[in-house]
């Protein structure tokens, strides 16, 4: 025991006080951190701050004015995301194991931190009262301090002992996610939070009583946790089914579309339209695709196939301008892409079979999503849009990244292309989009975009914002990826050529994987920027997460007066943003490590 302490003290000495310079740095930084902490602690605890302004408005923060009767849709979308995550974690479960002492060590360090900050926390704080006088109050009494110190000390010592007991028990690194999630879910059932209660005169009762967390919060979360766990086991069970991994990857891409068009919105469907429009269109295109696949190897068909392809391409272009149902336009576009792929893949029976399956699934998905996306929503929300608060921020970030990333890849490849027209178009798009500020693009989306769309086509403001966001961050992604493409040595291209790979295979299998890997850090920082920049939508009248905290709650006076409590809300918003971006950057570091960047 003494040895361990001696060793640690020596290590501290070496790392913190090795020279005069480092000693000065250590003392200086400690002083700064201490003062920052004491200041923040005083700010958070002082009685003129009303944290209920945050706690009481959680619902507003998450979904803005979304009607409570449709909350099930929100829960389903959250639940679906977790189920997908569960299956994915199970499918891609890592085989890395860590010794349980790692967890004890982590808790021990947290305990040490809590101990340190409990000791240095200020007892008194002072703030400026309404009349300008300085009010000093006790915020951290001796008994609270002791009440916190003693259990933490016991816990810390216990974890220190456990950590040094050399317990020979290891756990799977993927499993531990569930332990860390289990803790907050269990806490939901025991923690009591202060809530605002009003008396019969609609006056706030002080002090606010502590109440258990509402059933409408804890029951859905518990169900989601259980589903998460079950889907994880399903994932593990099907771990060896290779095809499922591909299905999951595509599903992840479709999930936001599904949530956007079917779950977060209540599509008002006219069954007549479905029967007379969607289903016939679906069958016509399915049969055309089927016939193409079945008869492609017929010599006569082969001979005239390029003419057929030309007709479809012209039809697709014409379809954009003539007024046919949206579904038919999208199907035409899909058909022209499909027809280009068919001759290359349908060389064997197996290829033909998978082509037909892909064609069927793609058409069903397209019809389903378009019907949901194009229909009017049945959800009526006061304000500009059905999305607001964190769900809007999240939608802009996730959806923006999902669309802009493939777009960025295509633009980057196009800019490096040997074909001059493709190169000029891609360079033009990138330069045009990048050289105009994002705010200008947002105004463009809200005011001008409708002018550029064909007559009769109208999108919701959020969809228009998503479109410009996709292009804006797509341009940045493109430039990042181009940097990665340029880092690939010429020898890689030659080696791929020399083994007879086609240009597509060369790009998809050799160049892109290496290029993307090289630019993961910049890609992540672009994604983080996109996430944070989503708060700019406030200037065109959308109520994102930040706007709720800064403007909406600050002006709330009914039923409870929260006017003037902006600072608490801003701190809360900042913390939430930080949690998400920090998690993202930690995950990306793990991905980098896993891909072995820098090792090879």
């Amino acid at each position, binding site marked *: 025991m003494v040895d361990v302490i001696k060793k640690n003290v020596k290590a501290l000495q070496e790392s913190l006080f090795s020279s005069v310079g480092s000693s000065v740095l250590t003392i200086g930084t400690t002083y700064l951190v201490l003062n920052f902490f004491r200041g923040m602690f005083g700010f958070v605890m002082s009685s003129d701050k009303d944290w209920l302004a945050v706690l009481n408005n959680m619902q507003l923060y998450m979904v803005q004015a979304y009607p409570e009767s449709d909350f099930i849709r929100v829960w389903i979308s959250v639940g679906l995301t977790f189920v997908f995550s569960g299956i994915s974690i199970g499918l891609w479960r890592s085989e890395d194991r860590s010794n349980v002492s790692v967890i004890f060590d982590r808790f021990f360090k947290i305990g040490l931190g809590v101990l340190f900050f409990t000791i240095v926390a200020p007892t008194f704080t002072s703030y400026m009262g309404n009349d300008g006088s300085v009010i000093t109050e006790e915020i951290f009494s001796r008994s609270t301090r002791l009440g916190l110190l003693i259990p933490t000390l016991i816990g810390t010592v216990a974890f220190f002992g456990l950590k040094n007991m050399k317990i020979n028990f290891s756990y799977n690194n993927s499993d531990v996610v569930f332990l860390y999630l289990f803790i907050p879910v269990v806490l939901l059932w025991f923690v009591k939070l202060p809530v605002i209660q009003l008396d019969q005169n609609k006056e706030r009762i002080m002090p606010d009583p502590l109440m258990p967390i509402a059933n409408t919060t804890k029951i859905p979360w518990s169900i989601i946790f259980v589903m998460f766990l079950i889907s994880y086991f399903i994932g593990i069970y099907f771990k060896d089914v290779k095809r499922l991994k591909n299905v999951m990857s595509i599903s992840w891409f479709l999930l936001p579309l599904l949530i956007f068009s079917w779950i977060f919105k209540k599509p008002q469907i006219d069954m007549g339209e479905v029967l007379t429009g969607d289903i016939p269109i679906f069958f016509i295109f399915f049969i055309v695709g089927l016939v193409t696949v079945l008869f492609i190897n017929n010599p006569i068909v082969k001979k005239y196939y390029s003419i057929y392809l030309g007709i479809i391409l012209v039809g697709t272009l014409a379809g954009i301008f003539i007024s046919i149902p949206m579904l038919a336009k999208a199907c035409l576009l899909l058909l022209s892409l499909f027809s280009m792929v068919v001759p290359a893949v349908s060389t064997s029976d197996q290829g033909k079979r998978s082509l037909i399956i892909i064609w069927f699934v793609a058409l069903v998905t397209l019809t389903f999503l378009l019907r949901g996306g194009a229909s009017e929503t049945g959800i009526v929300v006061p304000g500009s849009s059905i999305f607001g608060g964190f769900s809007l921020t999240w939608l802009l970030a996730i959806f923006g990244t999902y669309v802009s990333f493939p777009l960025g890849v295509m633009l980057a490849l196009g800019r490096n292309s040997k074909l001059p027209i493709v190169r000029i178009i891609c360079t033009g798009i990138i330069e045009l989009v990048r050289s105009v500020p994002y705010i200008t693009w947002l105004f463009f989306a809200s005011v001008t975009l409708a002018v550029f769309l064909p007559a009769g086509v109208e999108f919701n403001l959020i969809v228009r914002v998503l479109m410009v966001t996709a292009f804006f961050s797509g341009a940045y992604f493109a430039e990042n990826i181009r940097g990665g493409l340029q880092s690939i040595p010429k020898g890689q291209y030659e*080696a791929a*050529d*020399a*083994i*007879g*790979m086609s240009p597509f295979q060369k790009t998809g299998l050799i160049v892109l994987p290496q290029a993307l890997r090289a630019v993961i850090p910049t890609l992540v920082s672009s994604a983080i920027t996109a996430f944070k920049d989503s708060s700019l939508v406030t200037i065109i009248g959308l109520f994102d997460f930040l706007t709720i905290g800064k403007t909406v709650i600050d002006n709330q006076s009914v039923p409870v007066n929260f006017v003037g409590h902006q600072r608490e809300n801003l701190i809360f918003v900042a913390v939430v943003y930080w949690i998400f971006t920090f998690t993202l950057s930690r995950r990306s570091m793990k991905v980098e490590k896993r*891909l072995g960047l820098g090792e*090879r």
Partner: protein
Amino acid sequence: MSIIQANGVKKWFGDFQALKGISMEIAEGEVLVICGPSGSGKSTFIRCINRLEQHQEGEIIVDGTELTNDLKNIETIRAEVGMVFQSFNLFPHLTVMQNITLAPIWVRKKSRSDSEEKAMELLNRVGIPEQADKYPGQLSGGQQQRVAIARALAMDPKIMLFDEPTSALDPEMIKEVLDAMKELAKSGMTMIVVTHEMGFAKEVADRVMLFDEGMMVEENTPDEFFDNPKNDRTKLFLSQIL
């Protein structure tokens, strides 16, 4: 019947003429060593054979197909011609096994299990079966070059091109690569080897050529080439290199 035929191949890089009319023939199963000072066009010439460089005049016929801009021809020829580079050019993001099976699976459309079986066989042949699951970055230079040979062989090529395969290697690793190449030559593979390893040329080659300033200055059997060269340029070259 010659498997490669070149008639008056000329190639310019801008104003600089790298190949000044090369004509030659190689029979099936023959091992040809090309040597010469740097900048003599020997690498350029073999890179023309699988169209990594384009020649501007003359014709090259590989296995009955003439090299033109027709993309289909190029891909067929590249599948028939394996190439090993000076700087290995393995794919660093794939394991050794994936490096070798990539082309059979995607270009030849073979099944994964067949390709992997074949790859293990090839790794055994070049003597590094235990490295199958490592990444190229974890291997020594000699091992990487042997993987590169296995990768080229996985396509069942009729012709193998070696572009200075040992120049980037430490002396003690050269031998292991040369051994693999000798074994390959004995198995009857048609090979064109650009190298400065004169020992290899003496022992394995059926013919030796000397390139200088874009021209072929001497073509001879190895014995004659080393003991009784016809050309003065060859004598000078040999005196410098030996």
